[in-house]
């Protein structure tokens, strides 16, 4: 009896915890949206300055690393597609292959994973250390709703900056692919880029962008909810940071797959 009960007990407990976590994140999302829409009326205005600061930290500061990774991934895709398509003598298809795979998948995915590692973890660490040192309580008793002050600006900034970064990563990756593939195809890089533009449909770009919006919500909610649930001092903050990154990346990849399946059915 006991041998069966114990794993069942553990399973039930884990399930309950997971459901509670999702519920908590959903509550944070609804509360942030409430303060964004109605905050002014209840004296909890979401400050533009706070949003701008978050946008700088999440978006602008990430530009160099997004550029670097985007470029590298583009280059890599160029190399791989040229090599594998050459087997069928179909090198010329590399343009469309790179264009579609970058805009539909890799741009959004690479950017989201990078931002999860940079900003999702930063959100968890910041909010986590704030709850440990009672700063979250202090905000509440000053009359500043912590969700309004800490979550809403980050959510807006993420929703704006992740798609922007994704577009940027798309562009850089395609340029990276062009630099390798154009010589291999005996065309100029600018001819390669023009051909890319003529082959891309708006739907390809939208597919990546719509995913990046979902990723933005995921990264923010996982970051802040793990941050708010920190307990156990500095060690807890470290654990929450790791957890935020791992959870975000898992969710991003799974959601990406589900999305792709539904869109391309």
């Amino acid at each position, binding site marked *: 009896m006991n041998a069966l009960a114990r794993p069942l007990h553990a399973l039930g407990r884990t399930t309950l915890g997971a459901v509670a976590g999702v519920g908590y994140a959903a509550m944070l999302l609804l509360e942030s949206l409430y303060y964004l829409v109605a905050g002014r009326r*209840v*004296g*909890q205005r979401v400050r533009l300055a706070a949003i701008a600061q978050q946008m700088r930290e999440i978006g602008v500061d990430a530009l160099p690393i997004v550029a670097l990774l985007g470029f590298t991934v583009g280059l890599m895709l160029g190399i791989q597609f040229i090599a594998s398509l050459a087997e069928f003598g179909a090198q010329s298809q590399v343009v469309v292959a790179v264009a579609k795979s970058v805009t539909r998948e890799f741009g959004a995915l690479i950017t989201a994973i990078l931002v999860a590692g940079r900003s999702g973890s930063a959100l968890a660490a*910041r909010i986590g*250390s*704030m709850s440990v*040192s*009672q*700063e979250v*309580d*202090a*905000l*509440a*008793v*000053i*009359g*500043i709703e912590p969700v309004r002050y800490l979550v809403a600006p980050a959510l807006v900034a993420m929703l704006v900056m992740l798609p922007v970064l994704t577009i940027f990563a798309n562009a850089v990756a395609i340029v990276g692919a062009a630099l390798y593939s154009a010589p291999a195809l005996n065309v100029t890089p600018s001819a390669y880029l023009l051909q890319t533009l003529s082959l891309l449909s708006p739907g390809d770009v939208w597919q990546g962008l719509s995913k990046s919006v979902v990723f933005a919500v995921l990264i923010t909610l996982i970051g802040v909810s793990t941050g708010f649930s920190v307990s156990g001092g500095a060690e807890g903050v470290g654990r929450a940071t790791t957890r935020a990154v791992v959870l975000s990346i898992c969710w991003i990849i799974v959601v990406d797959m589900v999305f792709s399946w539904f869109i391309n059915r």
Partner: protein
Amino acid sequence: MDAPAPLIEVTRLDAWYGRRQVLFGVDFTVRPGEIRVIMGGSGSGKSTLLRHLLGLQRPAAGSVRLFGVDLGRASERELLGVRRRIGVSFQGGALLTSLSVGDNVALPLREHTDLDEATIRIMSRLKLEVVNLGGFQDLMPSQLSGGMVKRAALARALVMDPRLLFFDEPSAGLDPVVSAELDELILRLRDALRMTIVVVTHELESAFKIADTITVLDQGRVLLTDSVAAVRAADNERIQDLLNRRPREVPVDAEAYLRRLTEERA
């Protein structure tokens, strides 16, 4: 004229952490103008009581009223109204580490008022002067000593000119001189600004020095609320244990003891 209405009115408050009850039917009343010290050992429930007074936790049973507003049932707007009229200095200061000392002190003004930046600057520097931190507004909280952090937190608590001030463990982690200075500061604030002050502490010396009245908490129950002299003279054994730093004798219930040892989820 009638006696002034109490600023804080707690009736039959119960609190739980999971399956453990930490407050048992606590009644607690504070009238305007007094300095009330909540005293008790570790685990007596004084921090939990404070969290309820601040509206950070909802009562499991009973009610907490500040300025006549029931915190458990108040609308968001009412709660905000209460919070603008109270100031809180947390045990560790709880200054926002991302903001300078000056910005920390100015934060409530920036969020709750439409004052222009120059006025806010002057008002926050005034409060820093009150706590003897004039000129420190540009430092970051991490650059301050423990006593300075507490005083900066006090300045932030005072910046909206609250009628009611809460002070959690003013002397914890401070050397005797600095904590004596903080006690003086608390007394001066009451006299100069006519504030009602609630102090949570386990430091006897500082409690006796600043208190008008003392509430002694023990294991989640109020043992006594009375003047300093009456508390000193109280013949309750637990109070005398606290006053004389005697280790308490925990009675052992054999059955409960065995249950705790053997039960899987005690």
